[in-house]
């Protein structure tokens, strides 16, 4: 280490511009000064840290406010149908406040709604990965996959959403989610899975008419009219005039073959629409057209059978011209037979088992006509078939 020049104080050689002799002579002062300055620097660093942290906290508050403004603007744009503007605003909101998953969730939903499925999927999957316990991202993915036709994937996401963490006050929302899944399963004719979910949901639902009706309707769609009727009845106990519950109960009773009960339900529907009116008419025809109904007189029984056979014959006659000649002849012969039988029924003294045979004939003829000429079918035709099915009568 070669010296470069001399110290003006003591004349010793300098090293890197410093006199080691003078420095080492005053070690304590030198040491203290250096340490003191280092301590001062450390204090400055601490002060800088505290200042920066305060500024960062203030910046964070500002960013959150900005994010909220962008989010509200996005909602406004969505309400007004401006999807692209809404997406821009949501992206800004998500960037300004990265901690809040609601913005990214809203962005994912909006991307999905605007058909940008790949982007939506990526974002929602990333969100789900960050917060696997949160149901919303899984739900959004489920709806996206259901919309694009990936039903199995959608089902898995629905199930994942249902299995996520839910607070007690979110029970209604969770129930709605389960009903969405049930609808998906029913749309794919996965009745067994749908029924499993229905049993799950029905085990713990409040007595609110809307909820009971919703569950009842799905039981009906799943082919469980008895359970459906139970829920509709519960709903009607709370709200006897609830239209959808009355119609649902009528449908359920109809499916169970309890036409009188169905008729009672539809009679309570205010302002019945075409379908309800048809339902009511069919229920009336069934209850008033079944010749095997208990506790009716013989004359009434014969009248009903006469009407059934006459109607079946008329239907066959109407159907025959549209059929090939060999079938025509067969249908015409069957119609004549039915007419003859009807005439025989009008004569007094026809025994009860003849009534049953006659009804069986009418039913089979109606079924044959239904297969050959599905339309038009009159309410009486439908009623006769229902009567035959209810009575367990044979197929042609």
């Amino acid at each position, binding site marked *: *280490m*070669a010296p470069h020049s001399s110290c003006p104080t003591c004349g*010793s*050689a300098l*090293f*890197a*511009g*410093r*006199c*080691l*002799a003078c*420095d*080492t*002579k005053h070690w304590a002062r030198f*040491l203290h000064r*250096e340490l003191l*300055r*280092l301590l001062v*620097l*450390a204090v*400055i*660093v601490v002060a*800088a*840290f505290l*200042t*920066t*942290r305060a*500024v*960062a906290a203030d*910046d964070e508050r*500002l960013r959150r406010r*900005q994010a909220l*403004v*962008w989010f509200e603007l996005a909602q406004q744009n969505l309400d007004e149908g401006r999807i692209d503007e809404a997406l821009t605003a949501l*992206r*800004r909101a998500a*960037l300004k406040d*990265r901690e809040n998953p609601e913005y990214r969730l809203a962005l994912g939903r909006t991307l999905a709604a605007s058909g940008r499925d*790949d*982007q939506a999927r*990526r*974002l929602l*999957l*990333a969100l789900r990965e960050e917060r696997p316990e949160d149901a919303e991202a899984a739900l959004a993915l489920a709806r996206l996959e259901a919309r694009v036709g990936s039903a199995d994937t959608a089902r898995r996401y629905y199930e994942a959403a249902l299995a996520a963490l839910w607070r007690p006050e979110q029970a209604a929302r969770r129930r709605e989610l389960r009903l969405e899944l049930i609808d998906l399963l029913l749309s794919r004719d996965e009745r067994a899975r749908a029924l499993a979910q229905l049993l799950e949901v029905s085990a713990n639902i409040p007595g609110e008419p809307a909820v009971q009706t919703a569950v009842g309707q799905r039981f009906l769609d799943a082919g469980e009219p008895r359970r459906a009727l139970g829920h509709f009845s519960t709903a009607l106990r709370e709200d006897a005039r609830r239209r959808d519950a009355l119609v649902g109960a009528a449908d359920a009773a109809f499916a169970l073959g309890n036409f009188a009960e169905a008729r009672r339900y539809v009679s309570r529907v205010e302002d019945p629409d075409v379908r309800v009116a048809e339902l009511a008419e069919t229920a009336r025809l069934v209850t008033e057209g079944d010749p095997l109904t208990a506790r009716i007189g013989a004359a009434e029984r014969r009248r009903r059978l006469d009407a059934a056979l006459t109607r079946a014959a008329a239907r066959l006659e109407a159907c025959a011209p549209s059929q090939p000649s060999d079938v025509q002849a067969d249908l015409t012969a069957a119609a004549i037979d039915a007419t003859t039988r009807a005439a025989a029924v009008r004569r007094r003294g026809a025994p009860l088992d003849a009534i049953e045979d006659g009804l069986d004939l009418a039913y089979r003829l109606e079924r044959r006509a239904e297969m050959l000429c599905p339309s038009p079918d009159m309410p009486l035709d439908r009623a006769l078939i229902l009567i035959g099915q209810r009575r367990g009568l044979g197929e042609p």
Partner: protein
Amino acid sequence: MTAGGPSDVRDLQARENRLFLALSILIGVLAGLAAVLFSLAIDRADYLFFGLAPSPLRTFLVPTATGLVAGILLVRVFPGVRGSGVPQTKAAFHLHSGDIPARVPIGKFLMGVLCIGGGHSMGREGPSVQIGAGLASAAARWLRLSPARVRELVPVGAAGALAAAFNTPIAAVLFALEEIIGDMNARLIGSTVVASVASVVVQRSILGDEPLFRVPAYELVHPAELIAYAALGVAGGVISLLFCKSLLALRRAFQRLPSWTVAFQPAIGGAAIGLVLLAVPEVKGVGYEYIDQALNGGLVLQAMLLLAGVKIAATVVSYCSGNAGGIFAPSLFIGAMAGGAIGMAVNGLAPFPTGEPGAYAMVGMGTLFAGIIRAPMTSVFMIFEITQDYQIIVPLMVANLLSFVISQRYQPVPIYEALLRQDGIHLPSASTRTPEGWAARDLMAGDVPFAAPEDPILVAHARGLTSGRPAVLVGTPDRMIGIVTMDRLAAAVEAGRRDEAVHALADTDVVHVHPDHPVDVVLERFADCAGLLPVVSRSDARRVEGAIGLDEITRFASRRGPRRA
């Protein structure tokens, strides 16, 4: 033991070593805090100047007005803080023993907030590097460390600042070694790591540990995709060249404007940027929001192509007009857009399975960074750290390498050094740096014949004859403008041009060396010179420190042996 003896020196060095380690930690923290504060200040300035949804008038006026204020301050108060800050930091490290005046980090902070917050299309990472380096230099000088230690703390401060600016501790260390020091084997690696770690710890304690960009886990989908990524690398290299050439050309044009316009050039740039922002507001400032969209496949092809092109133009204008800001973030922006656009094209055309356009955007960022900044190792690690996606690293390396090679082939001088050369500053390159052995300064002689530019040819000829040199330098020792050979002077005298000014004969393209150039470089260049090889300062390539002629070389050859320390 007498005072000043060997053990005292060892004690002093041991004390300095301990102080240096403690200081590295403090500097890392301080530089990191400065970078965080800088970033927050820019965001706040942006909000104050523009609000959430600025009107067209405001969009135009803000960059113009801030450019006007910045121009005046840059001339009168903070003259050394234009541009990125990385070239200046390198110059301070290599040429000025790490001496960065305290005014520089303060000025860079204020001017950076004004310019970038005012809408200019520039990055904040380069200024952060200069702020960190400046703080380190100031602290080291205040603590009366030796000049060598002061110098060594400059890259430590730079690493600390960059680590916090990008949240990339590894890349920051690599950048300090690769770009600031220029030596991957530097013994400062320990200090830069310490500073980088300290900085990031503090930064994450304040801002959290979220990566800069949230991206899906992209990966190489099919081996044939490497062809597509290679094409991206080639495209990246071409775009890097376009950017660098444009930057240097426009900067040269601005430098040629009259000196009285210097204070107004930032405002000119600001007005141009204001007009651009009216049409394409996406290129305002740093642009991380749109990089995020490109990485997540949120932009269409046409948008990405437009943004890539406009960002190049906007950044070139902002930088060359003299505003304070960097080119890191714009490089990433351009790369993301170009990469994303190529990704969309590949998606549509490739006969093999391909990844998402976002993957190409991510690789594109690194590609442009490698091609423009010319720091390939840093670019690979930087992209990995800011996205935290390791799966894409192989395509990233392939594309980066191609971009780097192409850029280097057609732009041999890296951008930062090219910018310094435009300012008359020549940095030592790795091949010319030599800590030991004979250098030009050991050969040069101080007696250099000069002729003033207005001197008559006859006078210059006479001076040359007196000196016995084969050529005469035209100008002054502080400002050489050219060289003229004695043969040429003699011919001019013979031709009757004795009274003409000598500058008419001067060759302005002067072959020269710097004092630290090794002897082999001296000999190589001597063969191309006019018989007299000027030795010029690196910090001012027109300041002559000596000259080397045949006599000096002959003397060197006769005495050559191991150089004494």
